[in-house]
């Protein structure tokens, strides 16, 4: 008895969750992106702590900052979704409640991310 898995299951290599190593891999990929993005975000926000509205707007409207802020918000919420998913899967044991919590958290994070990106566009294009 070398393996309990069927030959087809082993060939597909998706494991018990049906998604293989995809979750693991995108979590690492977003982690690597988060390191420079969050250092940039935190030290930029620190430098802007005493700035007035016009200064902050001008700073965010600068194309490089607009691009980095969109990337930071998108990556942050992608990474948060991955992380919260694992936490929920570990601690919510009721199958239905787990499913509902996962979906609710996902929707809430997408709503926040889109709100943030729309705000960045409004600042960048001044409408």
């Amino acid at each position, binding site marked *: 008895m070398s393996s309990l898995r069927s030959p087809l299951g082993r060939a597909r290599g998706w494991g018990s969750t049906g998604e293989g190593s995809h979750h693991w891999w995108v979590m690492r990929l977003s982690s690597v992106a988060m*390191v420079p993005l969050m250092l940039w975000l935190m030290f930029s926000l620190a430098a802007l702590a*005493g700035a007035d509205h016009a200064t902050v*707007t001008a700073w965010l409207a600068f194309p490089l900052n607009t691009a980095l802020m969109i990337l930071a918000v998108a990556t942050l919420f992608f990474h948060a979704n991955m992380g919260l998913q694992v936490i929920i899967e570990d601690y919510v044991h009721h199958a239905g409640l787990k499913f509902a919590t996962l979906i609710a958290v996902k929707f809430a994070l997408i709503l926040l991310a889109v709100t943030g990106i729309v*705000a960045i566009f409004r600042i960048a294009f001044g409408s």
Partner: protein
Amino acid sequence: MPKHPRPLSPHLQVYRPQLTSVLSVFHRGTGGALSVASVILIYWLWAVSAGPQAYATAQGLLHSWFGVLVVVGISGSIFYHLCTGVRHLVWDTACGLDIRSVYRSGGIALFIALLLTLAFWFVALWSVGLIQSLWKGVLS
């Protein structure tokens, strides 16, 4: 009760805390807390986009004693999570997994997180002008 009591898996309540387990628990804890705190970033971006009045309200909240306390928590958590996260990435290459290296990298992660947090607050207090006025106070 079973005839032969089996060893318990490391439940947090009955397990002696060690640097390794405590750092691991805090990595997950800060990750969850920072996910919640991301609401504040979105609120701040929205306030900037909404105009000077909304921005002034946001700045007022962030510069209040409670706001500063929250930002202290966020800055400490994010730099901690970043450093222990890099430690996890190193482990994924199958490096530094023996007990000695794990304890050493844990110490290094804590130290760099502290340095980054202090640097963040130096920049923030400089931006607000507090460090300059403190410096003037020392000179005069």
